[in-house]
Each structure stands twice: as C-alpha cells, then as structure tokens.
C-alpha cells in the first residue's frame, strides 16, 4: 500500500482525528461533570456516567494517538514526534501546536493517575484531576487556533456547541453541588 505522505490525504486525517478527539474529550468532560454532580435517572444510573466517562477517556487517547501519528507522518509539515509532548518543539504554528502538546500532557497525567487511583489515594488523585478543567479549554484553543478549519462554518459551529455544552454542564454541576450542600 502506498500512502501518499505528501498532499491532502494525511492532512484531512489529521483534521478529522483532531475533531473527533475534541468531540470525545468534550463528551468525557460532560460525563465527568454528570458523575461528580451525582446525576441519576431511572434509566441512567450513576455508574453509567462514571463507566462511560472512563471508557470515552480511553477512546480519546486512541484517537489522539491517531491524530499525533498522522500529524507526524505528514511530510508537508515537518513536525517531529517530540512536538506532541514538548511545547515549541516545532516551528509550524508553534504557539497553537504547543497548546496541543500541553493538552496531551495534561491528559496523560489525568489518565495515568486515574489508572493508579487505588494506590494514589483519593486526595492526591482529586488534586490532579482538577487539571481536567485546564486540559479541555487548552484542547479547544488548540483546535480553533491551529486555524486550518477556522473558515469552515460547521467546524466552528461544532466547536461552539462543545463549549456551550460544557458551560451548561458546569453550571448544572455548581447548582447540584449547592443543593447537595444544603440538603446534605
């Protein structure tokens, strides 16, 4: 099989996997907020939010790995693998790309600590998990700012939708917490 390493093929793949990663990350954040806010309905038990949150997060890692692979393989832009982890390791749109690296590093910290949660203890795990509220906006900024689809309306709309959803869920989470504090 001969993959054309130059030309639009990988570039589309990079954009597509990037977008899917962002969508999945948003879903993960939403599910995390639902879990923390103890959302529950007859058809939606609490462990569902939590279980989906974990699985979707792992899916995020999978698509992120694809996204990084296609980016590095694309010879149109010479982005080394290190740029996926280290900010300013590449020249191409250095600032926006670096945001992606930061988001990825934060995500790795979130997932790693969650995997060893039992050994880490709740307090330490929780302190690291607050970084999720840094990881997601940085990822959004990376996606919007990297600019390749800035002019495409539906991509912008999708990004906006993600932001609105997380804002709404955060507001709900704060109200739920206040209610919990009052009743319990």
């Amino acid at each position, binding site marked *: 099989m001969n993959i054309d390493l130059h030309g639009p093929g990988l570039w589309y793949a990079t954009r597509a996997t990037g977008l899917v990663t962002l969508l999945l990350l948003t879903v993960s954040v939403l599910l995390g907020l639902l879990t923390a806010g103890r959302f*529950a309905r007859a058809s939606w038990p*609490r*462990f569902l939010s939590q279980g989906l949150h974990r699985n979707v997060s792992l899916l995020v890692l999978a698509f992120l790995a694809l996204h990084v692979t296609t980016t590095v393989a694309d010879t149109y832009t010479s982005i080394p693998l290190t740029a996926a982890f280290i900010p300013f390791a590449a020249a191409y749109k250095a600032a926006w790309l670096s945001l992606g690296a930061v988001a990825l590093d934060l995500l790795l910290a979130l997932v790693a600590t969650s995997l060893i949660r*039992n050994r880490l203890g*709740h307090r330490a795990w929780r302190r690291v998990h607050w970084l999720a509220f840094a990881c997601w906006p940085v990822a959004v900024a990376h996606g919007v700012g990297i600019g390749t689809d800035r002019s495409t309306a539906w991509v912008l709309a999708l990004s906006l939708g993600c932001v609105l959803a997380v804002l709404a869920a955060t507001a709900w989470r704060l109200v739920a917490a206040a209610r919990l504090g009052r009743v319990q």
Partner: protein
Amino acid sequence: MSVTLRINPIACTGHGMCAELLPEVIELDRWGYPVVVSPAIPRPLLDHARRAVQACPRLALLVEDRAGKHR
C-alpha cells in the same frame, strides 16, 4: 478465604454508586448513605464487589480478608 465489605465512613459522602453496583449487599439509608446488609461477600458476587470498590468516587469502599488486607 472469606472476604468482607467495609466502608470508611469518613471518606464516604453518600454518592450511592456502591448500592447500584452491589444491590444484593448494599442498601442506602434515608440520607443516602450505604448500609452493608451482610458484610460477608458470597463468592459469586466477588467480582461485582471489586467493581464497586473501584467505582466508589471517594475510594471509601473496602474489600478485605480476615487479616484486614485488601482483596
């Protein structure tokens, strides 16, 4: 080897996930806090119990053998 369920009542905030995942053994009281109906876990429920331990958002659920070691 008998395994028992124990709750750390200080860590527990009454989230209720344990009662969803192990309803045969854990019920919630009127304030949403777990009541362990029978601390000894029967063998067929062991995997469910471990899953409940993993799921607890505060790591307040413990599965221990008689020596108090985590299982």
